[in-house]
């Protein structure tokens, strides 16, 4: 090897140091990340089941067949393939109710997360970006909200307004925005001090434009992570409210409601509470793992 060959190594080193594009890196990480994949697969499955409910459910979830009540699932004594997950106290097919119940959970989870996301993120980003008095005012609002016991307030509101899918979604959406506000505020504060934001301000870009084109793209990852968390909380919240009777009303199939309805028989027919409860549990785990995965993939430096 002579000297002239050696010097050409410089150019190659430069290219090798550049590395692949960030999106490619993230995709690679995503493929290897078990929690993320597991969460994504389970969530997609539940969504598909919920969307295709009319096609997948063997029975109408509201039809009662009193003679066939309290049939156990197919794997227990006396179970039959015609009612794979058995029937509840009113003879309604459990499998069908479970499938339709997915719709309730996903609807509440998804829309409550969107509503609380809009409210909380707006407050957080505005407070984090403008700082000063605006920020103090917003933090004051957030603190006030945090001081109120969310569950009790939700219960009180539902009892006055009446329980339904809509009211529960709206109430949860208007109560669960605090984490969005806190996380988005601190994320915005961190991005705010970056040079590219200062540069945009120096050039004279309007505040709105800066927020949307400089700040937002950099905080959106954290927003997604919080959104998954809040979606899980909304699902648990709806289940709890429905369990207490102040959520979705019968005869609608909600997993939380099904646990409450099955409670009377739980000592002899535990499947009545085990099945819907496990579904809530599984769905929430999946969403949480998905959120953890998104965080790990988009910002592994923050991983711990």
């Amino acid at each position: 090897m002579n000297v002239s060959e050696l010097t050409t190594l410089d150019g190659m080193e430069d290219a090798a140091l550049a590395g692949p594009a960030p999106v490619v890196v993230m995709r690679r990480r995503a493929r290897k990340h078990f929690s993320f994949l597991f969460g994504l697969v389970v969530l997609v499955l539940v969504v598909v089941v919920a969307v295709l409910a009319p096609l997948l459910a063997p029975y109408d979830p509201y039809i009662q067949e009193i003679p066939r009540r309290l049939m156990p699932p197919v794997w227990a004594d006396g179970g039959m393939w015609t009612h794979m997950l058995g029937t509840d106290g009113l003879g309604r097919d459990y499998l069908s109710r479970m499938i339709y119940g997915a719709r309730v959970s996903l609807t509440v989870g998804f829309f409550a997360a969107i509503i609380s996301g809009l409210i909380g993120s707006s407050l957080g980003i505005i407070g984090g970006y403008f700082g000063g008095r605006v920020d103090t005012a917003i933090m004051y609002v957030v603190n006030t909200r945090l001081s109120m016991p969310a569950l009790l307030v939700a219960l009180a509101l539902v009892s006055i307004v009446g329980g339904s899918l809509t009211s529960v979604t709206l109430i949860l959406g208007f109560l669960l925005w605090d984490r969005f506000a806190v996380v988005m505020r601190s994320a915005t504060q961190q991005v705010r001090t970056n040079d590219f934001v200062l540069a945009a301000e120096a050039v004279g870009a309007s505040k709105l434009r800066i927020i949307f084109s400089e700040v937002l793209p950099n905080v959106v990852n954290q927003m997604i992570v919080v959104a998954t968390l809040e979606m899980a909380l909304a699902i648990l919240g709806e289940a709890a409210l429905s369990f207490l009777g102040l959520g979705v009303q019968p005869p609608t199939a909600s997993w939380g409601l099904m646990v409450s309805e099955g409670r009377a028989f739980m000592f002899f027919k535990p499947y009545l509470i085990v099945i819907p409860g496990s579904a809530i549990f599984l769905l929430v785990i999946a969403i949480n793992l998905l959120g953890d995965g998104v965080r790990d993939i988009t910002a592994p430096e923050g991983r711990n």
Partner: protein
Amino acid sequence: MLRFCFARLAIAFLVSITVSIIGFSLLRLSGDLGAELAGENATQEDIQATRVAYGLDRPLPIQYLDWAGKAVRGNFGHSLFSGEPVASMIVSRLGVTGQLAVFSLLFAVIFGIPLGVIAATQPNSWIDRSALGVAVFGQAIPNFWFGLILIVVFGVVLRWTPISGSNTLAHFILPTLTLGTSAMPAIMRLTRTGMLDVLDSDYVRTAHAKGLLPHTVLFKHALRNAVLPVVSLSAVQLGFLLGGSVIVESVFALNGIGNLAFRSIQRLDFPVVQTILVFVSLIYVLLTFLSDLINAYLDPRLRVG
């Protein structure tokens, strides 16, 4: 330092007042309380009569000031259902909820902090993964369902513990387990994250460089720093536990404030409901203030102003 306390106290006070206003207004604004109280078959005259009887026809600010004025003197009104003074209803049930909340927090801290420390000292080991698994479990499981399962398994099948009521300490075992499991994950994760950061820090490296024994470095230098945010979180968690005890008290038939709130909500006993809302909020505000004080005591850097 004193100025710091006053500032915090002032903010806490302002938040409390705001919460009381909101709690007060929410109940009255979100629907026609008069109509609800009058019942389904009431006529317009009945509803109006109901409104006047409860003072609901007056402007909201007047209603609030009237209530606030009495509240400051300790008069929180009477239950629409039983006629008892609200204050004594709450006080008599405070013990049960207080015990449940404190026990649950102790459970969460006693299991959460050591688990977090161990997980941090052996990252990516089976202990670490198990700890994270436990955290995922605790965060995802619906409280009410977990409670029911515990009742079936431990109360009925195994018959180890009582399953309802609150007569003895043993009655608190399952409820504490249920509520504590929901509070533990956050504490464990925060401890673990904090420890991982701290163990990587320069001052821990200095401690090693001084030849200090490993357990000295871990407990004296590392944990002392890592535990700061956990203390704050614990104080705040206590507040959440007070508010979130509704479910557990309902499942285990504990006669605490949560249960009282729930029944009062169902019965539209709004004097009780709004007093409980304000009460729980005040406790939360107090706990936040307390955690600020504890933080300032533990972290010398915070004591300036």
